[in-house]
């Protein structure tokens, strides 16, 4: 096992969790107002009174001051007004920037922990520089459209993908998660999946962007993300650069397996929107390792502008 600094990675994980809690505090705040306490006390009343409460007594207990003549049971909570959250070009660009910061976080954490050395460290350093440039570009585009740039990792993606993935790599003794046996391979596998998802995200945004020039600009970055993934595919699987899975080609050119490799320079003809599985961490007692499926940001992962106002 490589002698890398797990404490550095753990510190980075704790820091991002604190930020995520701050961001989602506004969302939690928005869900307040539902009268849970009142519902609970009424339920307790039923328990205390046993089953002898008559229907008439229930109606009397639940009624308001104005009678509609229609019996009703319980108090309906005051509905909260839902925030209008349009998927605008600004929201898409802010989300793209946040995804760049997810990647920056992973490469910075891996660098500070010293997981990668030599050639892989050099490659990761170049990728880190590229993601910083991409983040600056998408932030600049956001501001050119009159929006406010978002310069933090995407909180939801950080919590459902990045933190669990890094926990599998560094381990979590308190929760019985052992550290991986091969941190270098796991970090490279995670990077491959992240870069693939980053390219897929820009691809997915093309038909959603209203401004044609933004589509080209987005795919200028998506092109680079795809090349990052392909370079890692070359490193991880140098013997088979292009997958034959799903292609109608002569049998002599097909791979000798029904199971695709974990990485290729070119895994499929088209850029795909499918989840990207990445297997990480130590094997359990049955010899099975955990697979995390990374997906492109969905509607509930977008960094809408209203989140700033509530923050």
């Amino acid at each position, binding site marked *: 096992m490589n002698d890398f600094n797990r404490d550095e990675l753990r510190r980075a994980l704790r820091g991002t969790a604190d930020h995520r809690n701050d961001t989602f505090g506004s969302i939690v705040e928005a869900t307040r107002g539902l009268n849970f306490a009142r519902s609970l006390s009424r339920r307790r009343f039923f328990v205390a009174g046993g089953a002898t409460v008559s229907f008439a007594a229930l109606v009397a207990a639940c009624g308001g001051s104005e009678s509609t003549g229609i019996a009703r049971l319980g108090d309906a909570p005051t509905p909260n007004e839902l925030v209008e959250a349009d*998927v605008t070009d600004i929201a898409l660009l802010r989300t793209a920037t946040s995804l760049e910061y997810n990647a920056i976080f992973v490469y910075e954490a891996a660098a500070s922990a010293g997981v990668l050395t030599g050639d892989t460290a050099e490659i990761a350093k170049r990728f880190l520089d*590229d993601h910083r440039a991409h983040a600056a570009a998408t932030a600049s585009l956001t501001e050119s459209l009159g929006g406010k740039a978002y310069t933090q990792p995407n909180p939801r993606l950080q919590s459902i993908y990045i933190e669990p993935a890094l926990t599998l790599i560094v381990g979590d003794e308190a929760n019985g998660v052992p550290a991986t046996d091969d941190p270098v391979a796991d970090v490279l596998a995670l990077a491959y999946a992240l870069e693939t998802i980053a390219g897929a995200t820009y691809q997915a945004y093309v038909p*959603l962007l209203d401004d044609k020039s933004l589509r080209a600009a987005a*795919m200028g970055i998506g092109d680079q993300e795809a090349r990052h993934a392909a370079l890692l595919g070359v490193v991880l699987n140098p*013997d088979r*650069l292009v997958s034959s899975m799903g292609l109608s080609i002569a049998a002599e*050119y097909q791979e000798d397996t029904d199971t695709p490799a974990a990485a290729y320079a*070119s895994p*499929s*003809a088209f850029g795909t929107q499918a989840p990207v599985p990445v297997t990480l961490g130590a094997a359990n007692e049955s010899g099975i390792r955990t697979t995390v499926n990374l997906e492109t940001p969905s509607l509930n992962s977008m960094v809408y502008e209203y989140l700033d106002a509530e923050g």
Partner: protein
Amino acid sequence: MSTTPVTKNSDKFATTPPRRPTSADIELLALAQSAELTARDLYEQAVAAGAGGDHVASLVAVAAHHDAYAQSLSALLGTDAPQVRNDALFSSLQSGFGSDTESMALAAHELENTLVVTHTDLLGLLEGTEGAALVASILIGESRHCAAMAALAGKSPVSDIDLFLTTSDVASLAPQA
């Protein structure tokens, strides 16, 4: 960890550009289809000449990829699809797609870069979202081909990293806006 995918049908979207290709889009997508058929023919010529070495299966797969791109563009264009390669482009690149794997891979690297640049330019011109989405998915595939061809040419992902990552300065096939 499954999350709701973003779809264009969602009422969360404020405006909607046209879905189907406009008449101007059809000309642009037809250009793209001819370019893809050209690429397919160039790779097939290289395989027939004996290029590829241990990686000949990867060249066969890339030829199939370009054929798939042409077929998908044909499905979008219908009867407007040209279904023929760009002969001028084929002739200008033909000599590079011979039996020597390294020089062929470098010629293929330049071709893939040309296609990436062309498709990026097309995205700035296309109105319809179906055509734009298809071109974007092709572009991702061809970006990855660039890195694959750099590796096939024997280049190092570390000391030659720019060949893998940087879109080279090639001329676009797309009309300029």
